[in-house]
């Protein structure tokens, strides 16, 4: 593959299983998508859809009982992350791939000053202590922390929740990674802070030019921040495409139901809020055929066979037997 046009992250046919006492649990089945260079790709899906497993697989941090059973994870078109040794993987994390997690307090060490932590993560940069501190100050200024020189000597508890998350973002982007994975980074924040944080992330992403994989269950945030998006259900990518293709013309019944459920779409009070009846299938006994079949209003006899990935428009793909047959 041509390295110049290669996407920053490309995942091909990834399947991941966990060995549990009750048997094998297939957490991801045949997951494929790409995060193009310099773009923001969102992942949506509800609890248990495999978002966390997917991130851990990319970062090489699957639990001991987890195993990549097939597929490849290509970083910048060259390295297959599933084949790297733990040591090689460790050299990539923080440098080429960095992460911002949901809980900003958990991401910072409470007994070290912020300046010390920001210096520590530059240990591979070869800079002097003074140069590192200068870069830390510069980075804090970019994430709009007032009075950054003084802030370096302070401890995490002296920062508000929104500031801590901005410090975490500053630390993640400090080494100018190729790929930033943001796992629900705004979920713990108030609405006003959430909006400020996504605007900041968009701005920094454009400055640094990295690719971002942004996980959120907040559909409004995905619509506002992302270029492309992926919808996951029970460990499968059921639909992917540009944000506009999906929000304006979702074709997978699960995506349609999920969008329908978002109370942000309702501009007046309704008698009953829409829900998705039924529960997630048992991933230890994955049903054959379509994974959403049991909860799908359109399910028919054909759905007992595995559905194809139907390409509806360039880049817009839905894994459904009914997707080809026009808009619902």
């Amino acid at each position, binding site marked *: 593959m041509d390295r110049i046009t290669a996407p920053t992250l490309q995942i091909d046919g990834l399947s991941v299983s966990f060995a549990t006492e009750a048997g094998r649990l297939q957490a991801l089945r045949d997951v494929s998508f790409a995060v193009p260079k310099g773009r923001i790709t969102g992942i949506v899906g509800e609890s248990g859809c495999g978002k966390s497993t997917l991130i851990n697989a990319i970062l090489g941090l699957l639990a001991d009982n987890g195993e990549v059973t097939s597929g490849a994870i290509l970083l910048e078109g060259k390295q297959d992350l599933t084949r790297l040794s733990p040591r090689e993987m460790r050299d990539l994390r923080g440098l080429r791939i960095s992460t911002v997690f949901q809980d900003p307090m958990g991401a910072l060490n409470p007994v070290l000053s912020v300046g010390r932590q920001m210096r520590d993560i530059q240990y591979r940069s070869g800079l002097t202590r003074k140069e590192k501190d200068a870069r830390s100050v510069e980075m804090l200024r970019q994430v709009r922390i007032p009075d950054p020189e003084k802030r370096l000597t302070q401890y995490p508890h002296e920062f*508000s929740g929104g500031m801590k998350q901005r410090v975490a973002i500053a630390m993640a982007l400090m080494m100018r990674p190729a790929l930033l994975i943001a796992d629900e980074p705004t979920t713990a924040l108030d609405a*006003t802070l959430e909006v400020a944080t996504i605007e900041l992330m968009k701005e920094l992403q454009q400055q640094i030019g990295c690719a971002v994989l942004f996980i959120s269950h907040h559909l409004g945030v995905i619509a506002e921040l992302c270029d492309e998006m992926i919808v996951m259900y029970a460990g499968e990518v059921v639909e992917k495409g540009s944000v506009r293709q999906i929000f304006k013309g979702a074709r997978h019944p699960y995506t349609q139901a999920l969008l329908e459920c978002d*109370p942000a779409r309702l501009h007046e009070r309704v008698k009953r809020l829409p829900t998705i009846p039924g529960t997630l299938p048992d991933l230890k006994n994955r049903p054959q055929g379509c994974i959403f079949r049991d909860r799908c209003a359109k399910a028919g006899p054909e759905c007992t066979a595995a559905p194809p990935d139907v390409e509806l428009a360039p880049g817009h793909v839905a894994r459904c037997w009914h997707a080809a047959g026009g808009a619902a």
Partner: protein
Amino acid sequence: MTVPLLSVTDLRVEFPVGGIVTRLRGGVTRIEGVAGVSFQIGRGETFALVGESGSGKTTLARTLNGLQKVASGSIRFDGQEVSTLGRAALKDMRRRMPMMFQDPVGSLSPRLDVRALLAEPFRIHRMAARDLDAEVRRLLALVGLPADFAGRYPHQLSGGQARRVGVARAIALNPELVIADEPTAGLDVSVQGEVLNLMNDLRDRLGLSMLIITHNLHVVRQIADRTAVMYLGRFVEHGETEAIFTRPHHPYTAALLSANPEPDPDRVLDRINLPPEVPSIFARPKGCEFHTRCPFARPDCAAAAPEPRQIGSDLLTCHHPLNIPAPAGLERPA
């Protein structure tokens, strides 16, 4: 006019801060978590409290339930003053005004199964003589869980199922007012809808009143009859939900409404941006407390605190109320 079920008048809650050194130096020794709040909840009515973290929503709810001491003001529940009740009377009042706490799974003891969790309110209030198994079955049916869930432990429940158990515990003793602190935080959107539908159903069937605390404005619109917006321990705007959502008068309310990203990539944003940092209640701003973040502030806002004023059903504290419809997008036709 009928007597409201809950009537709160000029309620203040204080916390002591600092030590003897601070006191000797004449520094701040008390802060006001709730700083003069008045409102009423009628029978069968749902009232929502919204505001950012630290605005005093949870402190207010805990105080209503007697979990926090009242500094001054009055809380009357069904005509009875709550702030002066003794332990036994307070316990009886909590039977009529239970609280649902945040975190669906974390608010259930991991060592009790669902049967024991649902029987616990009866034991605490010495009503265990009745047929508890029948009560457990009745409650499970009421919240839409299968009867065989009685043997499960909290870690075997999903977030939505655990929340249903929490709802069942709250309504076990036929309460009159349920206080729910962030009832849907952390739940998926499809499950959030189920829980809100359940709470709306139970309110209609059992004639409950509800006080809902949340920072999710979409939830408020779907469930609350009236809404109060809190900022630094005070109500800045308070009135009928639909009126506030279609035409907010306080700039803070308008900013909160506009801070909701819409699930539509083509929407043109007309957002009111606020500086993200909330002032500290250790050093409340002079004049209107919101003027430090308000995009519409004028010089007189820093000089004097605004008096409450009434516009329609809406009571607000602002020198220069807005008179514009809700920010674009929020009321655009579907």
